[in-house]
């Protein structure tokens, strides 16, 4: 049986003999975002996992604040912070197996780092020394995608290819609430469902697309309600509840790996910082809203759960914070070094072999650089 034949899609019979079709009910999301922390479900969660998530959340938060600080020091051109969204970032990385693939959006540096990408290489795009700083194949992390939603069909294609090759690889694709409005979102979800590709779509609904609030982006009951229109399950989860996001993602990944097809997950969260350091968020939202969400901070939510249940003591908290500070110090130090640059790289990777045209241009730049060096030496 080919992959094409495994699809359980519908072909209507003539209306007079209408056939029962895919049942939409199980594809609809719950009325409320799924939560674990502070609920009975928390008791069933693996304490080891919770502690691991906590450690990563603290590291992630520190990474965000450090990277933002680096923009102020001119060491980073721009940083789209995921402060307030660390639960999603970290859970996305931890829900995957090593052989799986992550497709981050431009805001998801942290997910890439949590998956193992070198913290400095992950910032290459935003520092401006190259477009992607890491080898995507090393940790199976696609380049951070700047054009919104365009990475979603890539994830579908990769997952489909893996399945065709008989590999049980899952692709996790991340996108923002704003990105769901793009045609590529639609096409990716549709291909995934038709092909029953092992993909999980994680929408971080952080309330805004730059300045545009969700109410101007969609009129849907929830973004998770889009799933049924493709014939895949839609799940709604509290995006600040790391345990809940991790559980929902893990379930979806398992489902996909088992051949169950794609899932759309909407994680309800909030962008605490401005869109990027270059943005002025006071132009479009009030402090009160931000404060409400600060009270629902993902790090503190998990910390409260862990300390309340005696799974984390002061020493452990201190140790985690120390780790985070050490990471930040290393990051600062490395980012303070100027990256090595070779202007001739402009031509090195356009094609496998530079065309004749590019070789001519290479020579032109080489000559210019030589002249510049000479002038520099002469001065």
């Amino acid at each position, binding site marked *: 049986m080919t992959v094409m034949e495994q699809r359980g899609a519908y072909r209507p019979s003539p209306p007079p003999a209408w056939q029962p079709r895919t049942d939409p009910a199980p594809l609809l999301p719950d009325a409320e975002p799924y939560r674990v922390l502070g609920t009975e479900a928390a008791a069933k969660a693996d304490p080891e996992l919770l502690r691991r998530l906590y450690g990563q959340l603290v590291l992630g938060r520190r990474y965000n604040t450090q990277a933002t600080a680096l923009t102020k020091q001119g060491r980073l*051109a*721009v940083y789209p912070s995921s402060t307030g969204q660390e639960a999603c970032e970290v859970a996305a990385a931890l829900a995957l197996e090593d052989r799986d693939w992550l497709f981050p959006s431009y805001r998801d540096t942290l997910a890439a780092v949590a998956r193992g990408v070198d913290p400095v290489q992950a910032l290459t*795009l*935003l*520092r*401006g*020394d*190259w*477009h992607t700083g890491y080898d995507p194949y090393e940790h199976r992390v696609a380049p951070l995608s*700047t*054009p*919104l939603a365009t990475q979603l069909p890539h994830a579908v294609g990769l997952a489909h290819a893996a399945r065709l090759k008989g590999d049980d690889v899952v692709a996790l694709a991340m996108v923002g609430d*704003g*990105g769901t*409005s*793009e*045609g*590529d979102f639609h096409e990716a979800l549709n291909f995934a469902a038709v092909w029953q590709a092992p993909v999980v779509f994680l929408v971080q609904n952080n309330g805004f*697309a*730059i*300045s*545009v609030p969700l109410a*101007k*982006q*969609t009129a849907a009951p929830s973004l998770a309600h889009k799933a049924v229109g493709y014939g895949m399950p839609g799940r709604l989860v509290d995006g600040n509840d790391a345990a809940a996001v991790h559980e929902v993602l893990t379930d979806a990944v398992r489902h996909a790996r088992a051949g169950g097809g794609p899932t759309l997950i909407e994680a309800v969260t909030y962008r605490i910082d401005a869109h990027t350091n270059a943005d002025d968020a006071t*132009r*479009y939202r009030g402090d009160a809203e931000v404060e409400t969400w600060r009270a629902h901070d993902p790090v503190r939510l998990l910390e409260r759960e862990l300390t309340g249940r005696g799974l984390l003591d002061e020493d452990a908290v201190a140790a985690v914070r120390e780790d985070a500070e050490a990471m930040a110090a290393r990051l600062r130090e490395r980012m303070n070094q100027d*990256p090595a*640059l070779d*202007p001739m*790289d*402009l*031509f090195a990777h*356009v094609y496998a072999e530079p*065309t004749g*045209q*590019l070789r001519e*241009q290479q020579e*032109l*730049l080489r000559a*210019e*650089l030589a*002249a510049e060096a000479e002038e520099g030496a002469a001065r």
Partner: protein
Amino acid sequence: MTTVALKPATMAQALTRALRDALAADPSVHVMGEDVGTLGGVFRVTDGLAKEFGEDRCTDTPLAEAGILGTAVGMAMYGLRPVVEMQFDAFAYPAFEQLASHVAKMRNRTRGKMPLPITVRIPYGGGIGGVEHHSDSSEAYYMATPGLHVVTPATVADAYGLLRAAIASDDPVVFLEPKRLYWSKDSWNPDDPPAVEPIGRAVVRRTGRSATLITYGPSVPVCLEAAEAARAEGWDLEVVDLRSLVPFDDETVCASVRRTGRAVVVHESNGFGGPGGEIAARITERCFHHLEAPVLRVAGFDVPYPPPMLERHHLPGVDRILDAVARLQWEAES
């Protein structure tokens, strides 16, 4: 005698003023795009317009460029004059089908019954340290699409005049705004903004006798700088600012080249398949016997736009322009 109160203004401010005046003058003008309302646009070009004219006249759309341009087509069908903002050059690509297959063709398709007076504002070009997809020079795509006008200002005054003209045009205009000139300044009289320039006329920004630099948008100041520097080498360069790529002002360009006998086309866009090929070819067709040397081109390299730290090597700079001028076979003259 009245004294005119000249005040400094940036190109961004001139664009804002043009939008404001257009909105005030004509109730059918509607501004729309991502973040153009409450925020006033990521470059603040639409700053204050939603407040002044209401969100129905300056609208934050959902994040979908084909949807923005596609709905603008429908609005234009009903008699409105949409002014669409694409947030950055490369983010206009999702709207490419709407642009090429409908915006450019609807008037022709309907024998003139259904013109689409749409202005598509696109901040374009590099030099601002933008990460990938934020610095493309995409004018070649639009030039190759009959049915579109393609316009790009290089001065504060032209930013105002050309944008007013674009909005007033009954044809679709791709209005390319050179990002790195947004904060360039000039003085003008805000009580009497510059006249609305008709679309399609180039202008000689600097007269000269030795050779002509033909350029537009972000490369105009660079060429003027190069022309200054060239004096030291004994070259007196003329600089033509095209302002409009479609329609193309053959008259002004050829008059200059016939006078100087030598020309270099300068733009940021990749050289191969870029606007310079068309420009050089049509000059050669028209002025062959006046040319002392082939028309040369100084352009961005044929590579994807480089990362911020390398862009200065890609962009046509004064030295690269002068090197090209030096290759204009001056020996042949003597």
